[in-house]
């Protein structure tokens, strides 16, 4: 059995996928010679036909939207068609030239019940990507073409046997058969033969004598005597998509629209190859010549387009571009999904995507250095620490608490720091503070411990040395008082 998939107005549909504002009303696609190549049904309703000059088309419909043929978009749509079809069988012949946008699949002993579901899914997937297709299933590739032509939009038609094929051919005109030229069709119509079924009923030898080889071939095709051998094609997986934009994009929504389209194609590509994305790469070239590049490591390997899109949108919302975007490239790093599978108890983060989104939003709000996991620095200086990024990945098994020595129990209350440290006026008597006055607390020092002298970084330029006192102020609590660089400061309160 053979399955024929035919995308209606392929070049136009492929170009319109990247033209968000032009999907309604009459639209015509013009080729490099300025002639109408394809047009939608709304334009056809205004008597606009392929081959017409642009001026003529515009004179018939003033509101006609003209878009140029986009070879890049066609390649993307072709790849999309191939990836979708590959989910049924890898034996795919992609149409070339006039048949661009068509695919013929060879199916060996298909399970009709399963196949029906698969074809329905295929057509709905293509419709989701704004590619309206028809499909036909028959015993020969040519009958499958007839079935696809006769099918409704986004539906498929099955021709199970020769009788049903004859019934269908009774409704199809001669030009449907590609083996016949326009000249042959005119001759046959002169004989009163107007349908393919009528042609199929003619004697083979007589037809050959009058029309020649084309007549014999046409007869064989119509009667199922000839099965064309398919030329299966193979498209190498490509995990990136690039858009060279004629009209530079000036707004976020426009960029996100292209990213959405690219993500959808990449999702299909990943599914086809049985891979998942581990990181995503975005490249933007601006009109002023500057470029922006960003590689985002995904919190969890995925092939879902919506997750990629959300992650990139978060990044783009924080990005301030100073010129319109004229080139956009989106790529993913594919990985084998099995190699990323976590064990039952390994995963710690409940929703790594949500966490990544939270971190991105916080970075946009506060800056990337304002949050993280505090860790002590490799120094004795009491003020120094470092902030580590919160890991959204699988937990590091080496950072298990059991690998850390317990150490002595913590004594005393933790300190709450004053930021910045409060300048203090301190009265010293017999080498000990007896009275403290700051903006928030003042009073007599009831008791104190200290001084605790610390110093370090002796080999560096910035040598530091300080002395700290723990002071209890009457009915106000316990504080840390520091003498450093010839001045007193209240560092924090033992809280």
């Amino acid at each position, binding site marked *: 059995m053979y399955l024929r998939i035919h995308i209606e107005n392929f070049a136009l549909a492929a170009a319109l996928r990247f033209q968000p504002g032009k999907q309604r009303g009459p639209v015509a696609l013009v080729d490099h010679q300025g002639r109408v190549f394809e047009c939608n049904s709304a334009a056809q309703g205004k008597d606009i036909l392929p081959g017409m000059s642009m001026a003529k088309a515009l004179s018939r419909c003033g509101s006609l939207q003209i878009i140029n043929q986009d070879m890049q978009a066609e390649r993307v749509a072709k790849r999309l068609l191939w990836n979708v079809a590959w989910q049924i069988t890898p034996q795919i012949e992609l149409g070339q030239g006039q048949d661009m946008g068509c695919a013929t699949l060879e199916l060996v002993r298909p399970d009709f019940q399963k196949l029906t579901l698969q074809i329905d899914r295929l057509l709905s997937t293509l419709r989701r990507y704004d590619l309206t297709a028809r499909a036909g299933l028959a015993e020969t590739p040519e009958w499958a073409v007839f079935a696809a032509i006769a099918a409704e939009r986004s539906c498929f038609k099955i021709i199970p046997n020769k009788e049903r094929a004859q019934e269908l051919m009774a409704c199809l005109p001669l030009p449907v058969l590609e083996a016949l030229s326009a000249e042959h069709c005119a001759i046959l119509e002169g004989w009163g033969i107007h349908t393919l079924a009528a042609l199929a009923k003619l004697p083979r030898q007589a037809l050959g004598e009058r029309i020649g080889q084309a007549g014999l071939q046409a007869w064989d095709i119509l009667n199922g005597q000839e099965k064309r051998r398919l030329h299966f094609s193979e498209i190498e997986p490509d995990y990136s998509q690039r858009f060279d934009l004629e009209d530079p994009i000036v707004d976020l929504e426009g960029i996100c629209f292209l990213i959405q389209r690219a993500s959808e194609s990449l999702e299909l590509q990943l599914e086809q190859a049985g891979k998942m994305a581990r990181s995503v790469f975005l490249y933007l070239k601006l009109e002023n010549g500057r470029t922006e590049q960003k590689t985002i490591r995904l919190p969890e390997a995925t092939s879902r387009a919506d997750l990629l899109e959300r992650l990139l949108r978060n990044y783009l919302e924080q990005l301030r571009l100073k010129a319109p975007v004229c080139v956009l490239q989106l790529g993913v790093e594919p990985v084998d999904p099995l190699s990323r599978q976590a064990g039952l108890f390994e995963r*710690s*983060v*409940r*929703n790594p995507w*949500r*966490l990544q*989104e*939270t971190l991105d*939003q*916080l970075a946009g*709000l*506060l800056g990337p250095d*304002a*949050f*993280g*996991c*505090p*860790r*002590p620095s490799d120094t004795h200086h*009491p*003020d120094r*620490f470092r*902030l*580590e990024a*919160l*890991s959204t990945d699988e*937990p*590091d098994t080496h*950072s*298990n*608490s059991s690998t*850390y020595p317990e150490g002595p*129990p*913590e*004594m*005393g*209350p*933790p*300190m*709450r*720091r*004053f*930021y910045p440290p409060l300048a203090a006026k301190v009265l010293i008597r017999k080498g000990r503070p007896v009275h403290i006055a700051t903006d*928030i*607390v003042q009073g007599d020092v*009831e*008791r*104190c*411990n200290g001084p605790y002298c610390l110093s370090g970084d002796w080999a560096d330029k910035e040598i530091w040395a300080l002395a700290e006192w*723990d002071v*209890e102020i009457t*009915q*106000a*609590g*316990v*504080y840390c008082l520091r003498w450093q660089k010839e001045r007193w400061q209240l560092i*924090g*309160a*033992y*809280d």
Partner: protein
Amino acid sequence: MAREDTAGIFKALAGKTGMCPATALLDPVKVAEQPIGADYGGASLLSTEGKSPAWELPQRQMIECVCTGPSVGGQSFLECLINASWPSGVFTALVDAGHGFDPGSLKTGPDNHFFWVQVRSCKQLTKALDIILRDDNFAFVAADLRGLSNAQLQTIQPFVWYRLQRLAHQRAGGCVVFTRKPSVRCADRRIALSRARCLDDLDQSRETLLTDIQNSVHYMNRGQVTIPEAAIAG
């Protein structure tokens, strides 16, 4: 007449709870039924059985911890909450308006589950809280407002707190807001810490210090904004 009565009831309820009438209608005063039941290590500070009812903090609520002075035990309480094991979520977060968190002295454990967010204004604080409270990866969220002035705190509209409270209800550990004086009108519970530290506390273990706090804390219901005299007296 009946409508006026109803409005009067709403107003009375709102006055009692410190919330706007509509909010009070949606979320009337409830008595805490379920304790946290989390394991707080050896201190068992907030455990329920046989302990003071003051520490029976309910789950999934917004709690305001009023620290009447700079050295009354707020950080000890915060440390206890950060290191608690919550029934769901992975991370605990502190949104710190005063940059008062001291990584050197406050124990957060060796794992990477504590998340510190430093904010500089009320606007940043409420937005950051909003973002974090919406993420179910966080079991417990704390906000330290002690670094903000009264004028800054007054710029936060009550409805913002109400929205945050609704979000806090979705977190296992809820949200605890540390303030210097009662500021979160719609807080489900309010506790006051007022006993000033003394120098001898520096030689006590943290478990002992937590027990001391437990014995000195004052517990207030929703809408009760006046701190008892006994609490201030310590």
